[in-house]
């Protein structure tokens, strides 16, 4: 399925900013969360073309609804003794975690939406980032905030 979606985007010249695939609660169905950009007509065309793929069950444009999104990144940043304390403070402010330590590097885990990750990465750049691995965005539409009355269910 992934190749069909990726092939559709490359074949029709749509761009993929990030793409994330995994199983859903039904192991027969997987969820692809894809971030793309384009004007209204292009987004409309992307949705229609995706709907045409035979084994796509549903296409949801999360930008049209209330949704929550997260992305995780692992960042290997240079952490020589004189800067370690400052790096740790930044990690703390962003609620990241150090998951691996070596004499010269910290590897940091950080989760958040695109803006938060961007801000965090910008700050760490000052200390020299060696490598980054990002998962791409996953997202879900928000559940209804009001409790349903019994009879509605």
């Amino acid at each position, binding site marked *: 399925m992934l*190749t*069909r979606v990726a*092939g*559709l985007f490359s*074949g029709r010249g749509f761009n993929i900013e990030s793409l994330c695939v995994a199983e859903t609660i039904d192991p027969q169905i997987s969820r692809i969360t894809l971030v793309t950009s384009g004007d209204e*007509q292009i987004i*409309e*065309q992307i949705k*229609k*073309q995706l*709907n*045409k*793929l*035979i*084994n*796509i*069950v*549903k296409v949801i444009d999360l930008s049209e609804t209330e949704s929550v999104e997260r992305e995780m990144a692992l960042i290997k940043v240079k952490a020589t003794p004189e800067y370690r304390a400052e790096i740790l403070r930044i990690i703390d402010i962003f609620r990241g975690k150090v998951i691996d330590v070596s004499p010269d590097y910290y590897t940091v885990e950080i989760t958040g939406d695109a803006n938060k990750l961007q801000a965090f990465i910008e700050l760490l750049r000052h200390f020299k980032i060696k490598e980054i691995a990002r998962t791409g965005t996953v997202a879900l539409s928000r559940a209804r905030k009001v409790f349903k009355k019994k009879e509605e269910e």
Partner: protein
Amino acid sequence: MKLTGAQITIQSLLKERVDIIFGLPGGAIIDVYDVLYDSPIKHILVRHEQGAIHAADGYARATGKVGVAMVTSGPGATNTVTGIATAYMDSIPIVVFTGQVPTKLIGNDAFQEADIVGITRPCTKHNYLVKDVNELARVIKDAFYIARSGRPGPVLIDLPKNVQQAKTEFKYPKELNLPGYNPKYKAHIGQVNKAAQLIASARSPVIYAGGGVIYSKGATEALKKLAEDFSMPVTNTLMGLGGFPGTHPLWLGMLGMHGTYQANMAIVHCDVLIGVGARFDDRVTGKLEEFAPDAKIIHIDIDPASISKNVIVDVPIVGDCKDALMKLNQALSEIHVNWKDKHKAWLEQLSDWEKTHTLHYQQPPDGPLKPQYVIEKIYELTKGKAIISTEVGQNQMWAAQYYKFDKPRTFLTSGGLGTMGYGFPAAIGAQAAFPNRLVIDIAGDGSIQMNIQELITAVSYKLPVKVAILNNGYLGMVRQWQQLFYKGRYSQTSLEYSPDFVKVAEAYGAIGLRATKPQEVETAIKSALNTNAPVFIDFVVEKEENVYPMVPAGAPLSRMLLV
């Protein structure tokens, strides 16, 4: 009782009422061919797999049924790719079976292995690699349904050799298993009413109808009613020819790059454009920004992705052409307008344009033979009743301009992909479907050589296809572009050396005829029509005749080159 995958394949084809397969066997499909040996399904053995896929396509276009092609793995499979892409662009229902190396060898660069599912992913409506014999019947059931339903298209099924040999209980599924596939046939009545209101407000409406009208059963009658009852002119795309009678007074001819003056002027000056089963292709629209500049646009199509893809439309109607047109006819009949009076001035204007800029050419009595004259003679002598296929290029455009198609499914041409070498095998496929009808391929001397090997297929199955070769010694359409836009630099378009087509025909056991003067045309055609065998007619025509009118690529329809 347990059946092998090969037996299940043939049994499933029988369940789908397949009566004919076009193909060529090989090591990885030999098991299915072994079962085919004892089956009632007819098989047409081609000489190149591209011939098989185009023949299945021609069969499908002429009959409306799903065409079936069967080939082996690797090169057999890759040789069908051009034909699959051809069918995909023109929305033709085909199911292609390809052999594949055993599953345990897949990915090992085995002998005659190709990742055909990967290769054809962007040019099939859907495709399958069957890894488990238990899935096979279900896959075939779904494949046929996908191919023929909604916006039709080719579906490929890749059958590894061990799956053909594995056994399981055979039960052809009754229900489909396609949760994500649900083509919408019923047009939304609210949208139809909006369209009707828009049409009621129009002074100069025009209907622009494409291949969808032909593929939707019964839509051509509904289209005719729409045009006649509400006094509206119709223009067809290349793919739409035959969807509206070519001899009808309300017909404007084909539109687009080589469309008629009146059809293109109708688009330029209309105030409401009703697109039906067409996709606003660049060869039709010319410069997009200036396409139908003053018009509100209604677009009926079964494929939502075709709507507002190139041209933003005002009233989209997703649905089957017939259903939408019938609902539109009903809605319009409830609006009380004297349609004839209302559109009188507009129709007169169109008719004036036709008179001042009619399609024309000059055939000097003793001069070189004009290709247009050949087509007109074929039209006249077949009384417009033949099934015509074409190759691609000038031959295709002259056939579209000078043969008038009154009935759907009588014009078989590669519109979207523009595949040279399509017409001859497609004609063979159509002839196999209708042994008693007259099938003519209008070819060029370039195109015919792209699948000329299929002449032996026509001969061996006694398929009396006629091929009219408009032999101008050039790859004519490219030469025309070089003449008009590349300072006459005829780079690699001269076919100075060509085979003697009469001798080629004779070598294959077919009939070869030649006409070089206008006086010989009628005799040659009559002689071909009276021959119950495949015939090549080599019409040696004027070398540098051009197709006019012409809208240069990327120019607006209002900028036509007229000669």
